[in-house]
């Protein structure tokens, strides 16, 4: 167990080191990535702030609670952009060009090799904005000590669920020749998850909670952080994570059988 873990950590360290080396080669791109992230954070927070200039509450939440939710999702998004998002774009390229052959041959778990290979250092160093807002609004809504203790683990749990759902969807790339569309679909799921579940009504809410559980990603942990008695959402999250992981394993094996190894 421990030697395997140590080996994977050593490999991951190498992945990170390579990404930093690549990032330092393209400095303008590096700076532009930082600006891009800040524009994104600013536009989302600004939009919600402008809405609350005209309304006192949306659903059960006032400005501070709603902004805390947005900041929570930005923190999830920050980790997602830093550690996994680049890999999805590369996965489509790997499949289209047959480069997946070389990854399959590595003496490593292939999914680890695909989805943990690329990180984005520019986004990593941008951490102070989303996390700063999260802490600021956490103080404004007066989170309890228990909620502060659970805050970071729940951001990570949200990231795990979002990533698992996206990996599951990315398995569709095995069957589509041009996979940009699947990546855009993935981004649309993120867009839906960025708003609390109570803004969606009826079938849409049930569909995006039970069938494609993106509404659990932010809403379940934030409801728990506001009121620890609402722990049931976390159980749903864990259950969803389990089911989606099973689906990934199934579609991965099925996808590999359909993989045509282009250019080989």
């Amino acid at each position, binding site marked *: 167990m421990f030697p395997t873990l140590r080996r994977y950590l050593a490999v991951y360290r190498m992945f990170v080191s390579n990404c930093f080396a690549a990032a330092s080669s*393209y400095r303008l791109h590096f700076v532009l990535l930082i600006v891009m992230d800040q524009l994104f954070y600013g536009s989302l927070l600004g939009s919600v702030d402008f*809405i609350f200039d005209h309304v006192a509450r*949306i659903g059960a939440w006032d400005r501070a609670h709603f902004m805390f939710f947005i900041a929570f999702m930005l923190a999830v998004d920050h980790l997602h952009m830093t550690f996994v998002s680049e890999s999805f774009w590369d996965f489509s390229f790997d499949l289209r060009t047959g480069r997946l052959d070389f990854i399959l041959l590595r003496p490593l778990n292939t999914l680890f090799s695909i989805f943990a290979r690329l990180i984005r250092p520019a986004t990593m160093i941008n951490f102070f904005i989303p996390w700063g807002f999260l802490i600021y609004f956490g103080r404004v809504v007066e989170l309890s000590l228990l909620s502060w203790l659970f805050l970071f683990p729940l951001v990570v749990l949200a990231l795990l669920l979002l990533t698992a759902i996206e990996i599951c969807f990315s398995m569709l790339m095995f069957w589509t020749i041009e996979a940009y*569309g699947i990546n855009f*679909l993935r981004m*649309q799921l993120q867009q839906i998850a960025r708003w609390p579940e109570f803004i969606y*009504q009826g079938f*849409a809410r049930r569909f995006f909670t039970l069938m494609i559980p993106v509404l659990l990603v932010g809403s379940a942990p934030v409801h728990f952080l506001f009121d620890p008695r609402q722990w049931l959402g976390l159980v749903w999250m864990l259950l969803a994570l389990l089911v989606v992981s099973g689906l990934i394993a199934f579609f991965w094996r099925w996808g590999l059988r359909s993989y045509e190894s282009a250019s080989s």
Partner: protein
Amino acid sequence: MTEWAKWWATIRISWTKQLAYKLNLLLLVIGPTLVFFFVKYSLWTAIFRVEGITTIQGYDLAGMLHYQIWAMIVGFLAQGYNSMNLAEDIRLGRISSYLVYPFGFWPYQTASFIAFQGLQIIVAAISFVILAASGLLVDWHLSQVLLGTGFSLLMGVFWYQTSYLIGLAAFWLEETWVLRVMFLTVAQFLSGALLPLEIYPAWLLAILRWTPFPYLTFTPVKIFMGTYQGSLSEALAVLLFWLALVSWASQITWRRGLRLYTAAGM
């Protein structure tokens, strides 16, 4: 082969290429606009219904949803083009062929855009017919629809020319998608795509008036709705000014970029 025949042949080829991967086209062009509309529809319904608010800056729920429906049609009509292939062509050295062929890089890209624009018009027209037939779009007048469509198509040309300029940055940058995402983020925020601009603070509106952003969504939507209160000639003048500026910048960028071009892979 006459110049016109070259344009027509390129438009036809691009049309076929766009339709070759139909699922991809659906997910790239229609999906994002549809999902964005779904989120906005849900958000504004929740704000109005749950809170029992009757109006926000002159919009009641029906008016706000009407605004968002027209914003979706404007999105379908003129905001789908991206310059992904263009930047890749430069980076991978594929533009060498355009330098020797009797049909240049800009004409080729523009002809491809025209083909893409044709698809966008069809998608927008189908959406309009469905929404009007289902009763979701009410109180529309043919003159407003024609005027709004004309303005949106001009805005589509600006959108294309800006995407082209962003793509040309590939002469200097390894990746240009970052610039594209920055443009999209700012455009979405400042154009009135999420919130009608009346909701924004007055000081911001005063600045925005001289930028191209309000003319990307807010102005065409208000023209479609028949409630545009500004001067249409001023809106056209500002948009044409920005279009001319971006076109001029594209020419300069192309000429300077070519000096750096190393024809990778040749």
